[in-house]
């Protein structure tokens, strides 16, 4: 190691000063420090957002001899304040798995063979041209991810929607966040949370709705625990369908039967009104009441269509609607005691308590996902606990840029970077910024994710490019969609970093640069945009996904729309993209600011971040004295009358168990990265099925014994976990989906919320037997 003791001490001295300055002046930047050419062997620390969940923790990655060698939490990042979870601490090891894909591969005579990257890119462009010529522009599609960096999604949208002219752009955030989006849009008219993580420091009560934060958002859960530790009176209520580590860390665990959160939320509102806890000053000024369609279906058939219709009602009609949801009635539906329902209502209703509600997949992966989002907003709106420090209905995201790339850039079939394709003004704006004829942008959305894979199966889509996601593990009712991808006449391109079940069905695999091997941006759950520079070199022939798209776009003849140089394209794309959001409602921070700081929350106006939207004290777009819900034409937040309706498939005599699926702390989604990190793999080496101890005893199932689980769509054999880290109630089993050896989604159902089109991975019916 070429380093002297003295130079090492000087480096420590310098780093100490930088750390001290950063503590005193959050956001301070020392450009010279970052570019200082340290001797080989010395560790240089560089900031980046974490690659994993939507929390958006700031990391400092230690680099030595062009290799990432260490990770620590970034004390300057207000998200995590120096803390990391186990995935974050081991994150750099995902860069160095032995089977990393470093060369392009093309399927020849049935086998994937290495080829020069140029040949693979030529083939991708050629196949796209041929498919469009033979089958039309809507026969090609791209399927991306909330792990797409913002420039990736932007380039994909521009190429497919602006240049090719198809709205066949979707992302896996449809599987995790779509109900949150439609919940925000229907209740407030604008997407993304009004609050921020600072709410955690201000709240007196936390209610987590079907949300195992201790494992899925551990850093935020730690911040809740820290608040409770410091204030003593703070309460955490875990409202869920199974007992988890979050339940163990909470003050009270309340279990409800799957799908009945709808009824409980209405019952809480019933109680708030009955006890006269309504904040009438707030409601009269800032809330209007609406109802939509009911009995809206589940989308299990191809070509399913649904369009909701809002009808304005008055408070009396809302109050009458809630009469079906007395705590006693709802106890029968939900299994939650009337006493617990009243207790939850009293927490929300107490004018002296600030309440924050958190949720993630439990509410979003729900056949009435939009509705349950609406109903939790209803609770906060009735008591006026919203858009102020500590009072926050807060939808958490699962992926690092589900907000930044999918929701803000708009990489969904109906979306544009600003507005929707159906809106002429939004199309004109996009056409002008993208320098394409406005006629190029199709005013009709095509396929949401489930329907896109159905279209691939049917043959309506012939070419699909998948980037940064693993649908051959994650699609519900998986067998149909894998068989569809393998059909004759389909061409699959997969941009990947490791072999996966999705790359197994590829005709071309493009080797991708990962995370800090390229420059980019993520956008986290609290409207925070985070820049990462390229910290280490790209290995082999790997290439940034954005540049892959640019290469193919140029081969398709769109040089004018993709003119950027390899040196500056990320900055150039950012500067183009932020033109879409140049209003006080959504202004993004300039590139230079983002580069210098550990994330900035939008709207960023006159050099100031916005922590709480719709509140003129904090939000430059809000008008008036107290609150201004400017997303809706009536400048009010909407309370919705949404009833309880049952799940698409419920247990019966033949399939008597609920199947619930989800994640574990140690593994990121399908495990394609974290299973290659030895310490994470050893912690949870394979998936399992959690079985309630009473059910296990009745069926003769013991801990670790093999269990066969069967639904109407498929079956799987895996080991039982009894009294493990999670414990489902009687009549329910739970399976983590991270392990490609056990494709649990061959068992799940592809039913979805008719409004958001997000599938419900939490509820279908299965039977169990000893294997």
């Amino acid at each position, binding site marked *: 190691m070429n380093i002297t003791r*003295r130079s090492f*001490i*000087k480096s*420590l*001295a*310098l780093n*100490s*000063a*930088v*750390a*001290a*300055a950063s503590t*005193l*002046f959050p*956001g*301070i*930047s*020392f*450009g*010279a*420090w970052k570019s200082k050419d340290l001797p080989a062997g010395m560790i240089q620390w560089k900031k980046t957002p974490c690659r994993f969940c939507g929390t958006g923790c700031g990391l400092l990655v230690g680099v030595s001899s062009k290799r990432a060698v260490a990770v620590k939490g970034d004390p300057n990042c207000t998200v995590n304040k120096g803390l990391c979870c186990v995935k974050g601490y081991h994150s750099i090891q995902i860069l160095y798995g032995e089977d990393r894909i470093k060369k392009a591969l093309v399927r020849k005579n049935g086998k994937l063979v290495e080829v020069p990257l140029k040949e693979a890119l030529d083939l991708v462009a050629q196949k796209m041209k041929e498919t469009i010529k033979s089958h039309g522009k809507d026969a090609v599609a791209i399927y991306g991810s909330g792990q797409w960096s913002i420039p990736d999604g932007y380039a994909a949208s521009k190429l497919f929607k602006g240049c090719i002219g198809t709205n066949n752009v979707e992302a896996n955030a449809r599987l995790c966040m779509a109900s949150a989006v439609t919940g925000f849009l229907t209740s407030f008219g604008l997407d993304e949370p009004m609050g921020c993580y600072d709410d955690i420091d201000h709240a007196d009560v936390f209610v987590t709705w079907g949300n195992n934060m201790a494992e899925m958002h551990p850093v935020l859960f730690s911040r809740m625990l820290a608040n409770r530790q410091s204030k003593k009176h703070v309460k955490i209520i875990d409202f869920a369908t199974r007992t988890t580590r979050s339940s163990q860390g909470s003050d009270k665990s309340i279990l409800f039967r799957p799908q009945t959160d709808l009824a409980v939320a209405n019952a809480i509102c019933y109680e708030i009104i009955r006890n006269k806890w309504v904040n009438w000053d707030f409601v009269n000024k800032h809330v209007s009441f609406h109802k939509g369609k009911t009995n809206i279906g589940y989308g299990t058939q191809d070509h399913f269509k649904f369009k909701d219709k809002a009808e304005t009602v008055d408070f009396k009609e809302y109050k009458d609607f809630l009469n079906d949801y007395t705590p006693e009635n709802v106890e029968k539906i939900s299994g939650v005691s009337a006493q617990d329902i009243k207790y939850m209502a009293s927490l929300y209703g107490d004018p002296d308590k600030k309440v924050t509600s958190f949720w993630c997949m439990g509410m979003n992966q729900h056949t009435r996902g939009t509705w349950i989002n609406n109903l939790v907003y209803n609770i906060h709106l009735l008591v006026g606990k919203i858009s102020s420090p500590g009072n926050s209905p807060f939808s958490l995201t699962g992926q690092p840029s589900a907000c930044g790339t999918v929701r803000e850039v708009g990489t969904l079939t109906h979306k544009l970077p600003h507005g929707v394709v159906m809106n002429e003004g939004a199309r004109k704006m996009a056409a002008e910024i993208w320098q394409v004829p406005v006629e190029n942008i199709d005013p009709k959305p095509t396929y949401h994710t489930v329907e896109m894979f159905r279209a691939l199966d049917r043959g309506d889509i012939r070419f699909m490019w998948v980037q940064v996601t693993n649908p051959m593990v994650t699609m519900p009712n998986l067998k149909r969609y894998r068989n569809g991808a393998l059909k004759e006449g389909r061409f699959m391109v997969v941009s990947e970093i490791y072999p996966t079940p999705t790359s197994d069905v590829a005709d071309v695999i493009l080797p991708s640069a990962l995370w800090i091997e390229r420059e980019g941006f993520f956008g986290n759950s609290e409207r925070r945009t985070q820049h990462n520079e390229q910290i280490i070199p790209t290995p082999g022939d790997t290439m940034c996904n954005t540049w892959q798209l640019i290469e193919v776009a140029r081969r398709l003849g769109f040089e004018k729309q993709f003119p950027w140089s390899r040196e500056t394209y990320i900055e150039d794309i950012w500067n183009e993209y932020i033109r879409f959001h140049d209003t006080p409602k959504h202004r993004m921070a300039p590139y230079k600011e983002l580069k*210098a700081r550990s994330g900035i929350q939008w709207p960023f106006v006159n050099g100031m971040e916005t922590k709480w939207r719709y509140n003129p004290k904090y939000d430059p777009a809000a008008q008036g004295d107290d609150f201004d819900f400017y997303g809706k034409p009536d400048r009010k937040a909407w309370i919705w009358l949404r009833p309880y309706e049952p799940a698409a498939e419920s247990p019966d005599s033949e399939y008597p168990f609920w199947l619930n699926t989800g994640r574990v702390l140690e593994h990121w989604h399908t495990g394609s990265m974290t299973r290659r990190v030895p310490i994470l793999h050893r912690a949870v080496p394979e998936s399992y099925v959690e079985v309630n101890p009473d059910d296990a005893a009745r069926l003769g199932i013991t801990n670790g014994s093999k269990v066969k689980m069967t639904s109407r769509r498929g079956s799987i054999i895996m080991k039982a976990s009894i009294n493990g880290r999670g414990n489902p109630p009687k009549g329910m089993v739970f399976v983590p989906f991270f392990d490609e050896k056990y494709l649990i989604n061959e068992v799940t159902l592809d039913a979805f919320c008719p409004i958001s089109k997000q599938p419900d991975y939490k509820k279908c019916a299965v039977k169990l037997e000893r294997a």
Partner: protein
Amino acid sequence: MPVFSYLAYPVKGAKEELLNELAALDHCEVMPAENEEILILVTDAPNEEQEQELQKKIKQLKSLQSLGMTFGHGDA
């Protein structure tokens, strides 16, 4: 061979002047913040005597308002 690091605060409007004056001194490395009125100073005088002398010179600089030590190492 003592090594120290400091946060150096200039008098108002004198950040550039302080940067130049510190950089002109032997055994000093200076790094200005890009977006704050503050500098980082790292000193590595070869011995205790020169360290004392360097400290005297630094304290005489009129562009310097104050110094806050962030790291100290005394090596024989």
